[in-house]
């Protein structure tokens, strides 16, 4: 053995995946990985069993002792240095969020909970339209692992917050994991704290700093840390089998999305980038972003590739899916195929047409989930701007977006349909068509779903967690350049693009409006990219201005996307379908790919 070995497991909702890494001065190596079904539900009711099974398979695969005769995982031996785990099993950390005003404290609390990796059962506020008794009935139906309550800026609302406490007390929600008291993290107006002490309530209460102390300030970290701590010490110890696993891990078990967040924050810090990642699953799509060091996460609970396929169809509309497909695929066929995918989620596309339908669905799921992400990552609502005493309430509750795609330097794709796309260029296409990156954006793919493993490992060793990300986890696809605004006329020459690699001949290409070009540049190869300016286009530094940048290649190369932002679609569906097929042909270039 040349280095230290770490066993890192992700205990997912259906599959437990164990990976064994070897870390040495020279390199990080993935020695092997094995899966087993997660055993959190009946009849097993013990996650340790599934974890043990996965590790046993790994042991057989690698012929390295990882378990002992008592069928426990080996720790404190020379075989492995440490064990780490992430979890989304049993539905993950399920939270109820309560605030006072929907677009203010409730929204801030929602951000805190999502950023901590929670699955939100509901977000309630005084102005959510429910009557008191409806709220009580609704809370009773839910069985949260934990409640996050906010409301009232410091020195602000008192009675209204106390009423919400009253409602929670009356509802007396039960935990799904046992008979213990439901933990409640109170992160609202601190003047309300004595009220908790004056009444009999059924909760295990923890007070943290107000997450919205003033209208224009949000302080989510104390709440996020409290959620994590309560998750580990209260929730996880109740979940079947976790207590035993908790004793054996080298660092705290993290909710899987939080671990992904840590991995992205590590990348953002190391490279000084704003990073965005998506994880498109069968039922849900997560979007993560790190903007100026702050982590944001949204979960689009009804947008996914199989269980949620029909929901995507309903939200997007059939025409928005058909526009990505050739005309030979009728509405009737596409609907039936998507519906069947929902009914039999594990089936695979056999024909090129079936794959196209799935990838069209993925584009729309990504587009809609990004919209939801930006809906949450808005500048603090309710924050009065200076000198606006005369502004209307619409302006007061304005939705100024905190950041946009023009601010994202790096886009990372994850999730089956993207990670397992037969050709990397298809993955790049879905990411670009779904998220419409602007300016220059680096593209990578997490082919092995290793982001959570790297994230949880960063608790122990940030430097090597980064090496895992760079050397093992992320496949570089290259990058994409697109104007952030401006349009040309069809076939109008918009830019001369020059790519000058450090090694090899330079490439120059003229790109027209609505055209996509791919300039080959291998992984880890650097080049100088220059895109000439045009009076109609802005690449982020003003109209007329050119863009120059040192770029690194990847499996696809450097893509130039001159379709405009937003995409300028033809008016009729039949024309849109021809338009997208022309783009597809340009993407695929070689003709031997789908």
């Amino acid at each position, binding site marked *: 053995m040349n280095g230290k070995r770490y066993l890192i497991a992700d205990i997912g909702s259906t599959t437990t995946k164990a990976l064994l890494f070897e870390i040495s001065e020279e390199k990080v190596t993935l020695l092997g990985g094995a899966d087993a079904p997660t055993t959190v539900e009946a009849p097993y009711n013990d996650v340790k069993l599934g974890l043990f099974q996965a590790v046993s398979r790994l042991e057989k695969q690698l012929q390295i002792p990882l378990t002992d005769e008592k069928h426990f995982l080996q720790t404190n031996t020379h075989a492995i240095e440490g064990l780490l785990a992430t979890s989304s099993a049993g*539905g993950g950390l399920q939270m109820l969020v309560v605030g006072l005003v929907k677009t203010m404290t409730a929204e801030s609390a929602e951000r805190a909970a999502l950023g901590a990796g929670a699955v939100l059962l509901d977000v309630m506020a005084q102005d959510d339209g429910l009557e008191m008794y409806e709220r009580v009935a609704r809370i009773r139906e839910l069985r949260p692992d934990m409640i996050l309550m906010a409301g009232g800026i410091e020195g602000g609302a008192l009675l209204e917050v106390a009423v919400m406490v009253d409602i929670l007390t009356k509802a007396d929600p039960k935990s799904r994991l046992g008979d213990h008291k439901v933990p409640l993290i109170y992160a609202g107006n601190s003047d309300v704290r004595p009220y908790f002490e004056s009444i009999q309530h059924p909760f295990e209460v923890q007070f943290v700093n107000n997450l919205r102390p003033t209208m224009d300030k949000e302080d989510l970290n104390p709440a996020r840390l409290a959620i994590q701590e309560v998750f580990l010490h209260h929730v996880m110890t109740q979940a079947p089998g976790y207590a035993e696993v908790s004793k054996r891990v080298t660092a705290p078990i993290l909710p899987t999305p939080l671990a992904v967040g840590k991995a992205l924050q590590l990348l953002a810090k190391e490279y000084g980038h704003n990073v965005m990642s998506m994880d498109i699953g069968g039922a849900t799509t997560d979007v993560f972003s790190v903007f100026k060091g702050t982590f944001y996460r949204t979960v689009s609970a009804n947008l996914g590739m199989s269980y949620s396929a029909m929901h995507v169809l309903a939200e997007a509309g059939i025409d928005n899916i058909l526009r990505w497909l050739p005309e030979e695929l009728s509405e009737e066929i596409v609907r039936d195929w998507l519906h069947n995918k929902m009914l039999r989620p594990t089936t695979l596309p056999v024909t090129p047409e079936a794959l196209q339908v799935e990838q069209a669905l993925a584009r729309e799921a990504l587009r809609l989930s990004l919209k939801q992400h930006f809906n949450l990552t808005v500048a603090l609502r309710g924050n009065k701007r200076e000198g606006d005493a005369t502004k209307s309430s619409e302006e007061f509750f304005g939705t100024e977006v905190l950041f946009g795609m023009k601010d994202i330097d790096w886009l990372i794709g994850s999730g089956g349909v993207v990670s397992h796309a037969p050709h990397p260029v298809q993955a790049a296409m879905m990411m670009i068509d779904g998220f419409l990156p602007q300016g220059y954006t680096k593209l990578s793919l997490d082919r092995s779903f290793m982001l959570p493993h790297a994230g949880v490992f960063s608790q122990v060793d940030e430097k090597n967690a980064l090496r895992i990300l760079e050397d093992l986890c992320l496949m570089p696809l290259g990058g994409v350049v697109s104007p952030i605004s401006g349009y040309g006329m069809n076939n109008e020459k918009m830019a001369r693009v020059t790519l000058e690699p450090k090694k090899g001949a330079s490439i120059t290409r003229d790109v027209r409006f609505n055209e996509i070009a791919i300039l080959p540049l291998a992984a880890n190869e650097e080049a100088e990219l220059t895109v000439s300016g045009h009076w109609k286009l802005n690449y982020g530094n003003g109209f007329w201005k050119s863009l120059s940048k040192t770029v690194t290649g990847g499996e696809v190369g450097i893509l130039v996307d001159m379709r405009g932002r937003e995409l300028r679609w033809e008016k009729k569906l039949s024309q849109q379908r021809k338009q997208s097929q022309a783009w597809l042909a340009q993407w695929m270039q070689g003709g031997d790919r789908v």
Partner: protein
Amino acid sequence: MMPRRETFKRVLPDVGQVMVEKGQLVFPYTIVAETKLQPVEPVIIPVTEQLGLPPHMMNQMAIVKVGDLVETGQVLAGVIIEGLEYEVHSPAKGKIEDISPLLGTIALRLEGDPDEPVRVVNVAAELEMPELMAKRFIEVRQGAMVKMGDTLAKDDEEKKVFAPIAGLITEIKGATISIKRPFVLRQVFAYVSGFVTEIVPDLGAMIESDVLRVPGVYGVGGETWGVLRVAVANETETLKAEGILESDKDKILLAGAMVEGAALQKAQKMGVKAIISGGMHNKDVTQLCGHEIKPGTPENVLCMTLIVTEGMGRIPMNIQAFQAIAQKEGKLISVNGLTQIRAGVIRPEVLLPVEDDEGISTTEEATAGSLEDFVVGNTVRIVREPWFGEVGSIESIPLNEIVLPSGVKTLVYEIKTASGTVLVPRANVEPYRS
């Protein structure tokens, strides 16, 4: 698929009246229990505000407690100030739901009599003016729902007329407003033929029935029952509009591989209770229901019950399923289209009555396929295009992944079907059980 003796729990969501007895023979249409619900929200009485005192004194003033049943006019709270009694009375008959010392209120859940007569409010008399004048000040419309205490009319001097009860405004005639408390009749039916084995007090009963259960893969609509008619010749045929007859009203129809959109529309118009088919087009089902279907979780879909046994598209019904159902032509069968895809999967069902001479099985039903189902020589069914519904035998099991025409790389089975030998992803195959 084997006939089995099953127990069905047939209960109301809330207390009501049980209409059957233990040991009674019931049929799908037998009412097991019913209740008349009054779906209005509790009335919030601002007690401390009425008495002019701070909310935190609520508990000291309340005479009733949570859970108490009170009559109209009954004293709920009171206080003596300088020798004078001040009381708050209940505006209606009901149950005390909440007493809040934070807000100083009492929440009263109303109870009423379903046969309670319509309450008539004479706005002219209340506002003390002629009818012609009074009717100008009415602020509500016929057909509107009002809460107790809502303003029905207001004159120029801000004098108001309030709704004495919550309910539906059934009529506005001149300056009189009629309000009827709405009641919803909720009934639970037996759904199957069988015997009542146990009464669940105030809620319903347990019913034991011998049934042959044919599962579907997708459905819309809820429980229903009807006499079965086999509307096609075999499991591969399409049910067209001309195949729907006048006499199919209230019946359940069995189709083969497909039901055309026009047939679905005609059947719904004719009053057909349900259609069972191997396949249907999502487009046709969506048009029938009038909206996109998002069947991740159960939906209340307002159209006739549809049961799809194989998948969406034109897919011949499993021949065993078709024959089992067809054998029951002329008999009363039950179906439920309820489908839930996510955690807690619910699949639609067809329940066929079992004759005395058929016998029932007591062995465990075979569950989802295990590895033993997928060995060379076994018969399997393909469950994804381009060979959806085809049945064949496993010729070989290649050990290495192959690249499909889609570019996806995966493990496959080599399967011999009627149309030839094909390489099918292992994930696209289900065991074929007779």
